[in-house]
C-alpha cells in the first residue's frame, strides 16, 4: 500500500521538527529516511505511524486518509530502535500479541495464531527461541523478533526506526542484507529511518535526505550520491574535500594552477568552492603537466578495500584521498613522501559555488 504525506508541520514547543514535509512512497517500495540527529526523520516516521500528532498536514495510506485514525487502527508494523519487546512475555507471546489483542470477533482461533507465529519464527530463523524471554536474547535476535511481531498482524506498511542502530557492526551488516532479501521477497511498503548513509545507500530503493525538519532531496541511491541536489546532501553522503578556488576563463584556479573542469562556465572571474570526493583524485610521483598540486603524505591507512591517504598542501590545507590497493602498490608511497595530486572525473555543478 502506498504512503502519501502531505505538507506536514510539527513542532515541539518552539522547536520546529518538521516544516512543510511532503513525500510519496509507492506500493512495495523500500525507502530510507536519512539525516543527522534532529533532522526530523524519526518524527516523520512516528507521524506516519500515528504515534505523534500533527499540527498541519495529512497522511494517506493507499489514498485513504489515515490522519483521522488512531494508532491502533492504522495497521502499521512499527519496529523500534531498542526493540521494545514485551519483557514479561516469551518470544512466542510477543509475536502473537497483535493477533491476541484483536477484539474477540476478529481474533483468529488459537490454532491459527500458533501456525502464524511458527511461520514467522521460521522466517526469522529463530524457531528454537519461542519459549525464551527477550532478556535472554542477543540484540540481533531481539530485533528479528521485533520484526516478526510487527509482521504478525500483516501490516499495510512497515515502519522501522533506526532498526539496526544499537547493534554491532557485524550484526548490523547481516541484518540489513536480510532486510533487503526479505523485502525483495514480500514487497511490503517499507519506510525506515537511519543516520547511516552506507546503510541507506545499500538497502533502499529510494533515499529521502532530511535536514532541519525539511527534505533536501529524494532520489535513488545513485542519484543522491552522484548527483546531490545541494551541499548538504553532498556532505552528508560520504566524505568530501572543500577547495576555496577561483573561476576564471573556464578554468578553476588553485593558487596559480589552473585546471580545466567540465561544466565551468567561461563567464566573469569570481571566487568559488569546489567539492571533490576522496576517490576523485589521482596521485603521481612527478609534477606532470603542471596541473597538479604538490603535497606531502601525512597519513596512510592501507587497511580496507581502498587505501586512505591524508595529504598536506604547502598552504597547510589537508586533502583526503582514496586510491585503489593496486594504485597504492604501484606508487609505494610512505609517510613524508612528496607527491602530486590531480583531479579526475570531477564535473562542476552550480551548487558548488
Amino acid at each position, binding site marked *: 500500500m502506498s504512503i502519501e504525506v502531505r505538507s506536514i508541520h510539527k513542532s515541539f514547543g518552539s522547536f520546529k521538527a518538521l516544516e512543510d514535509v511532503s513525500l510519496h512512497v509507492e506500493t512495495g517500495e523500500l525507502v530510507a529516511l536519512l539525516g543527522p540527529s534532529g533532522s526530523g526523520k524519526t518524527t516523520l516516521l512516528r507521524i506516519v505511524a*500515528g504515534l505523534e500528532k500533527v499540527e498541519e498536514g495529512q497522511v494517506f495510506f493507499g489514498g485513504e486518509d489515515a490522519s483521522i485514525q488512531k494508532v491502533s*487502527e492504522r495497521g*502499521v*508494523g512499527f519496529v523500534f530502535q531498542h526493540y*521494545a519487546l514485551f*519483557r*514479561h512475555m516469551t518470544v512466542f507471546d510477543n509475536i502473537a500479541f497483535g493477533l491476541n489483542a484483536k477484539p474477540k470477533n476478529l481474533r483468529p482461533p488459537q490454532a491459527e495464531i500458533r501456525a502464524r507465529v511458527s511461520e514467522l519464527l521460521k522466517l526469522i530463523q529463530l524457531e528454537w527461541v519461542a519459549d525464551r524471554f527477550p532478556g535472554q536474547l542477543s540484540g540481533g535476535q531481539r530485533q528479528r523478533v521485533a520484526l516478526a511481531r*510487527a509482521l504478525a498482524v500483516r501490516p499495510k506498511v512497515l515502519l522501522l526506526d533506526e532498526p539496526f542502530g544499537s547493534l554491532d557492526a557485524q550484526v548490523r551488516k547481516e541484518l540489513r542484507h536480510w532486510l533487503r532479501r526479505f523485502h525483495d521477497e514480500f514487497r511490503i511498503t517499507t519506510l525506515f529511518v537511519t543516520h547511516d548513509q552506507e546503510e541507506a545507500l545499500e538497502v533502499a530503493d529510494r533515499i529521502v535526505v532530511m535536514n532541519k525538519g525539511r527534505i533536501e532531496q529524494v532520489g535513488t541511491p545513485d542519484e543522491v550520491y552522484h548527483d546531490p541536489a545541494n551541499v548538504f546532501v553532498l556532505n552528508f553522503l560520504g566524505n568530501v574535500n572543500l577547495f576555496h578556488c577561483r573561476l576564471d576563463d573556464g578554468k578553476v584556479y588553485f593558487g596559480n594552477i589552473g585546471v580545466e573542469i567540465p561544466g565551468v562556465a567561461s563567464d566573469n572571474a569570481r571566487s568559488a568552492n569546489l567539492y571533490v570526493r576522496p576517490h576523485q583524485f589521482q596521485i603521481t610521483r612527478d609534477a606532470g603537466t603542471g596541473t597538479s598540486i604538490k603535497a606531502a603524505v601525512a597519513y596512510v591507512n592501507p587497511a580496507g578495500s581502498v587505501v586512505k591517504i591524508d595529504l598536506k598542501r604547502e598552504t597547510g590545507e589537508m586533502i583526503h584521498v582514496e586510491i585503489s590497493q593496486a594504485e597504492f602498490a604501484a606508487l609505494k608511497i610512505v609517510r613524508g613522501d612528496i607527491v602530486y595530486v590531480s583531479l579526475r572525473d570531477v564535473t562542476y555543478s552550480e551548487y558548488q559555488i
Partner: protein
Amino acid sequence: MSVRTEPRSIRILIITVAVAFFALFLVLPLVCVFQNAFSKGLTFYVKTLQHPDALAAMRMTVITALVAVPLNLVFGVAASWLIAKFDFKGKDILLSLIDLPLSVSPVISGLVFILLFGAQGLLGEWLGDRNIQIVFAPPGIILATIFVTFPMVARELIPVMKAQGNEEEEAALTLGASGWRTFWLVTIPNIRWGILYGIILCNARAMGEFGAVSVVSGHIRGLTNTLPLHVEILYNEYQFAAAFAAASVLALLAIVTLVAKTAVEGMMRREH
C-alpha cells in the same frame, strides 16, 4: 584480583566499627524486645496477646491496613502512571504533593484531621449535626493512616515506570491493542514487582504508624487503639512485659516485611 590499598589494620577497624554499630543499634534492641516479651514466661505472653484489648488493637490495625493499602495502591499506580508516562503542566506540583506526607511530622498529619473533622474543626459542626464521628473513631485512624502512607506505592513505581519508558506501550498500540488492553497487558505486568514492593512498604508503615494515629485516636481501649498505641498504653501503665509482648508482634511484622522485601528485590533483579 581485587584492588585493596588499605592496610589490614584499617580494614579490621572499619569492619569492627560497622559490626558494633549494627549490633548496638539494630540487633540489640530487637533481642531486647523479645527478651522482655518472654520475661514472664510463654503462658503470660500468650495470655497478654489474647487479652480482649490486645485483640481489638490488632483488629483495628489490620482493618486500617486493609483499607489504606488498597486505596493507596490504586492511587499510587494511577499517579505514577500519569507522572512517568505523560507530560503536563503542574507535574512538579503533583510530585511535591505526593511527597508532602513524608516531609511533615506525623503529629501535624494527625492534627490536620482534628482541625478538619474535630468538634471545633472546619467540618465539625456539619458532621456533628449528622451524628457522624470521624476523629477519635476508626474513620479518623484510617484517614490519618491513608495520609501518611500516601506516597509509599507511588514513590516506588515512579522511577521504575520512568526507566521503562513508553516504547512497549507504543508497540502495543501499533499492534492494534486498545489503550485499556495496553494498560492491563503491558503496563501493569511490567511493574508487578514494583507494585508488590510498594504494597509491602505501605503495609509496614500503615500497621506501624504511631504519631498521626495517636493524635486522632483518642486512645479508647478496645475501640480506637491500634497495636502501636496499645504498646504505649501498656508501657505507661508500667506493664512492661505486656507492652513488650505486644511490641514483639510489631517486631515480627518488621522481620516478615524485611524478608518479603528482600525476596521481591531478588525477583526484580532476576528479571532485568
